[in-house]
C-alpha cells in the first residue's frame, strides 16, 4: 500500500484518528474530511492510528491542501515493537504498577493517578521493553492471573492483556515526538486516539477536544461480548447467574478506563446528539464539559434534488446502510412482507455494500426469497445518493444500534421523510429536540421500537398511502435539515470551538 506522509510542526489543530480517515471510508471519515476542507484557513495535522499495515488498502480521500502534517502508525505492527531482550526489571517500578492497577480496579471512580498522565512513566520508567519482556512484568501478570482468575485459560488471559496494553506504549512513543505539533488537539474518539491526545495534553497543557460519533467504550463492549473466541471454562456450578467471564470484564474495564482518562483530559467533550451526551456523562465525562454539535450536510446541493422528484410519491422504501447484522436488515424484510400484503406494488431497496458480512447478506437474500419478495426487495449495492434519493418515498433504518446517521439528514434535505427505530439520534432527528423551536417544526417521519416489523410496516403504509401526512413530514424534514443540520452550522460551531481553544492556549 502506498503511504503518504507530510511533515510540518507549525499547525493549528492536530487531529488524532483511530482506524478511520483517510484509509477507511465511513461516517467519521467523511466528517473529518468535511471538517478539514470546510475550514481552509486552519492548518491541520493528522495522526492515523491503525491496527496492522495489512488491514488497510490505500488512501480513500484526496488529502486537502490545508492538511499540513500527516503521519501513519500501526499499533500492532511488529515494527513498532522493540527487539526481544532479556531484562529483569526493578522492584520499585512494579510496586508502582501494582498501585496503579489497584486504583483502576477500585469500585468507585477515583481520580486518574498522576503517573499514568506522565509520558516519562512509559518512555523512561516502565518502558515498552520492560512491559513486553521483563521478568518482573511476567511475575506481575502471572500473579494477577492467579489472584483474579486462576481457572481461566491462561493463554487467552495473557494475550488479551498483552494485546490491549501494548498499544499504550506505542501511543506514548508517538506522543513523545508530537509535543511540539499544533496548538490544539482534537480526537474524534476516546480509545487509543483519545489516550494519545490525553498524554500530549497532560504533558504540554494544550487544549484537547474530544468528539465522539458513537460511544467508543460502548462499541468495544459490544465487540467483546460478541467475541466467540473467549472460552468460558467455568462449569455450570462455578458460575453465578449473570456473572461475566473475567477476560471480558478485564477488556471492558480497560476501555472504560481509557475513556475516563480521555474524558478527564478533554476541555470539550462533544457528542452528536443528546442521548449520546447522557451516555458520556454516565461513563465519566464531567457534565460541564459536554456539548452537542450535530453533523451537517451540504444543504443546497441536496435540496436541489427535490426538483428532480416525480410528481407522485414513489412507492419505494429505501434502507441506506451496510448489510450487517447491527442494521437488522431482516426486520426490514419482514416489515416489507406486511407492507406488500397491503400495497402489492411497494418496493423495499437495500442500498449499501454487501461485502462486510457475506454470510449475513446471504441469509437476508434467502429470507426475502422465502417470503416471496423477489419482486419487491432489491439489493442495489452501493449507489450514489444523488441518484437514489429522488426515487425513494421514504428512507428507513431498522438498526438495533445507531449514532447519528448522516444518510437520514441527507434524505431530509432532499425532501425524503424517514421511518427509524428508536436508537441513537433517531428521535431527535424525526421529532426534533435540540430546542423548543426544533420540536415546533413537527415530525419528519416516524420512530418505532426495534425489531418490530408490524409497527414498521404500519409506518411505511401510512407514509406511502397518506399523501397529506407524507407532505407534512417532507416539509418538516427539509425545514429541520436547513435549520439545524447544515454544513455551515457545523463548521461554524467547530470554528468557534477552535478559536476558543486557541485563545486558551495563548493565555
Amino acid at each position: 500500500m502506498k503511504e503518504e506522509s507530510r511533515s510540518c510542526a507549525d499547525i493549528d489543530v492536530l487531529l488524532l484518528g483511530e482506524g478511520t480517515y483517510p484509509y477507511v471510508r465511513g461516517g467519521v471519515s467523511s466528517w473529518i474530511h468535511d471538517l478539514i476542507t470546510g475550514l481552509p484557513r486552519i492548518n491541520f495535522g493528522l495522526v492515523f492510528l491503525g491496527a496492522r499495515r495489512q488491514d488497510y488498502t490505500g488512501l480513500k480521500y484526496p488529502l486537502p491542501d490545508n492538511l499540513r502534517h500527516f503521519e501513519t502508525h500501526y499499533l500492532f505492527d511488529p515494527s513498532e515493537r522493540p527487539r526481544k531482550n532479556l531484562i529483569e526489571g526493578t522492584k520499585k517500578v512494579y510496586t508502582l504498577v501494582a498501585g496503579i492497577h489497584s486504583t483502576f480496579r477500585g469500585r468507585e471512580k477515583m481520580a486518574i493517578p498522576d503517573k499514568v498522565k506522565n509520558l516519562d512513566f512509559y518512555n523512561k520508567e516502565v518502558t515498552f521493553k520492560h512491559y513486553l519482556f521483563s521478568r518482573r512484568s511476567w511475575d506481575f501478570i502471572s500473579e494477577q492471573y492467579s489472584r483474579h482468575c486462576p481457572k481461566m485459560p491462561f493463554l487467552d488471559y495473557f494475550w488479551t492483556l498483552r494485546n490491549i496494553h501494548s498499544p499504550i506504549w506505542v501511543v506514548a512513543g508517538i506522543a513523545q515526538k508530537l509535543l511540539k505539533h499544533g496548538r490544539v488537539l482534537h480526537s474524534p474518539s476516546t480509545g487509543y486516539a483519545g489516550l494519545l491526545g490525553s498524554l500530549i495534553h497532560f504533558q504540554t497543557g494544550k487544549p484537547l477536544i474530544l468528539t465522539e460519533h458513537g460511544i467508543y467504550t460502548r462499541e468495544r463492549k459490544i465487540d467483546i461480548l460478541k467475541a466467540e473466541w473467549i472460552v468460558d471454562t467455568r462449569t455450570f456450578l462455578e458460575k453465578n447467574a449473570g456473572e461475566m467471564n473475567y477476560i471480558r470484564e478485564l477488556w471492558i474495564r480497560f476501555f472504560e478506563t481509557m475513556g475516563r482518562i480521555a474524558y478527564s483530559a478533554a476541555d470539550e467533550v462533544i457528542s452528536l446528539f443528546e442521548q449520546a451526551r447522557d451516555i458520556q456523562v454516565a461513563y465519566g465525562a464531567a457534565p460541564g464539559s459536554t456539548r452537542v454539535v450535530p453533523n451537517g450536510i451540504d444543504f443546497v446541493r441536496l435540496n436541489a434534488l427535490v426538483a428532480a422528484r416525480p410528481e407522485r410519491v414513489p412507492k419505494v422504501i429505501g434502507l441506506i446502510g451496510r448489510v450487517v447484522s447491527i442494521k437488522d436488515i431482516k426486520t426490514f424484510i419482514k416489515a416489507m412482507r406486511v407492507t406488500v400484503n397491503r400495497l402489492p406494488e411497494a418496493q423495499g431497496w437495500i442500498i449499501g455494500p454487501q461485502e462486510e458480512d457475506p454470510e449475513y447478506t446471504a441469509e437476508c437474500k434467502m429470507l426475502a426469497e422465502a417470503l416471496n419478495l423477489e419482486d419487491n426487495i432489491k439489493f442495489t449495492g452501493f449507489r450514489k445518493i444523488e441518484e437514489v434519493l429522488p426515487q425513494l418515498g421514504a428512507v428507513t433504518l431498522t438498526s438495533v444500534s445507531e449514532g447519528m446517521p448522516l444518510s437520514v439528514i441527507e434524505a431530509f434535505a432532499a425532501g425524503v421523510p424517514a421511518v427509524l427505530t428508536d436508537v441513537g439520534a433517531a428521535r431527535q432527528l424525526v421529532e426534533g429536540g435540540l430546542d423548543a423551536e426544533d420540536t415546533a417544526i413537527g415530525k419528519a417521519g416516524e420512530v418505532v421500537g426495534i425489531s418490530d416489523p408490524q409497527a414498521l410496516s404500519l409506518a411505511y403504509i401510512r407514509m406511502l398511502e397518506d399523501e397529506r401526512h407524507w407532505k407534512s413530514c417532507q416539509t418538516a424534514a427539509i425545514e429541520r435539515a436547513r435549520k439545524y443540520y447544515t454544513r455551515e452550522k457545523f463548521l461554524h460551531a467547530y470554528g468557534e470551538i477552535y478559536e476558543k481553544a486557541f485563545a486558551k492556549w495563548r493565555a
Partner: protein
Amino acid sequence: MAGIGFELSKILKGSRLSSLLRAYGYSMVIASGPWLISIVSVLLTGYIAKPFIKDSAQITQFQVSITYLIAFSLIFTGHLQLYYTRYIADRIYETDYSRILPNTLGVILFVMGLFAVLLYPVFIYSFRNVSAMFALFFILTLGIMGSIWILNTLLTGIKNYKYVTFSFLFAYLVTIVCTYYLAKYGLKGLMAAYFTGQTLLFFMLLAAIIRAFPSTRLVEFDFLRMNRLYPIIMATGIIYNLAIWVDKFIFWYHPETGDNVIGPLRNSIIYDLPIFLSYLAIAPGMSVMFLRLETDFVDAYDGYFTAVNSGENLRRIYNRNSELALAARLLLTEVLRLQTIVTIVLLMLSEKIFDFFQFPKIYLPLFYIDLIGTQMQLLFISILSILFYLNRQMETLALTSLLLILNIALSYLSIQLGPFFHGYGFTLSFFIVSVSGILFLNRVMRRINYETFMFS
C-alpha cells in the same frame, strides 16, 4: 465507526503461540550416531584388514585415512546435518512430504559440489606423491560418506529400523568380503574395498528414502531459500563437529605427539587408540539416552506445549513444566548412572581387556582418563539434545563454541605439561561444558514459562 476494535478482535483471535516448537530433538542423536558408527568402523577395519595384509604400516595408513575421511566428511557436513534435520522436521510438520526426496538429492548434490570445490583440490594436491589410485578412492569415499551423513538425518523418519540396521550390517559384510579379495593390492585395495561398502550403504539408504518419501520431482534446492536457513543451527553444527575433532588434530600435528603416516595425514600413536577405544564404551549410554528422549521426554514435552496452547490454566501449565524438568533430569541421571557403572566395570577390567587385545599397557593411564572424558561427552550430548528439543539455539551455539575453545586450549596445554596430562585437556573441556550445560538447562527450565509466553 471509528476505532480499531474490529481489527483488535481479529488479532486476538489469531494469537496463539507462533513459535510452536517442532520436534527436531533427534538432531544430536543423529549427529552422534554416524560418529559412533565410524569410530567402530575404524577399529573394525583394522582388524578385518590385519589377516590379509602383511605390512602393518599399510594398515595404519588405511586406518588413518579412514579416520580423516570421517573427520572431514563430518566437519564439512556438520552445518547441513543439523540444519537439514530441522528442514525435514518443518516439512513433516507441514505434511509437505513431497519436498523431502528432491531436496535430499539437492543437499547431496550440494555436498558433492562443496567437497569438489573445497576439499578435492586440497587432497589431490596432498596425495600427489602417494598414488593417483589412492587419491581417487580417497576423494570418492569422502563424497559418499558426506552424502551418507545427510541421508542419516532422515533415518529416524523412515521408522524402518530393521532395514536400516540390515543395510549397515550388509554393507560392512560386503566390505569384509571385498577386503579379502582386494587386500593383495595393498593400501589401494583396502581403500577400494571400503569405498565399495560405503557406496552400497549409500544406495541402500537412498532406496529406503525414495520408498518412504515418494515425490514427482527429482532434484530441488528449496532448502537453500533464505527464509528457510537457520544460520545459528548451521554454525552450531559445524562448530560442534570441529570441537569434537580438534583435540585429535592437535595431537596429530603437534611435533611431540604426532607422526607422518601418508602424505600430509598424521596420527598420534599415544593418543589415538585409547580415545577411540573409550568411545566404544559409551554405546550403552547412547542407547539409553535415545530411548528416554523418544519416550518420557517427548511425552513431557508434548504435554507441556499442549497445555500451553490448549488454554489450560497457569497452575496446570506449571505442573507440566515440572514434569518436563523432571523428564530432563531423569534422562540425564539415567544416562549418567548407567554410564558410570559401565565406566567402573571397564576401569576394573581394562588391564584384562588390554591383555586380550594385546594393546600396550603404556596406554592404560590415558585410557582411564579418556573413559571419564567420553562419559562427559555423552553427558554433554544428552544436554545438547534436550536444548535442541527446546529450540535453545543461542545456548547450544554458546556451549559448542565454548567446547571448541576449551578443547583447543586445554589439549594444547596438556601436551605442554607432558605425557602424564594427555587426555586431561579433552576430559576437562567436556566436564566444563557439561556443567555449564546443566546450569543453562536449569535456567531454561526455570524460565520456560516466562520465555515461552513473553518471547513468543
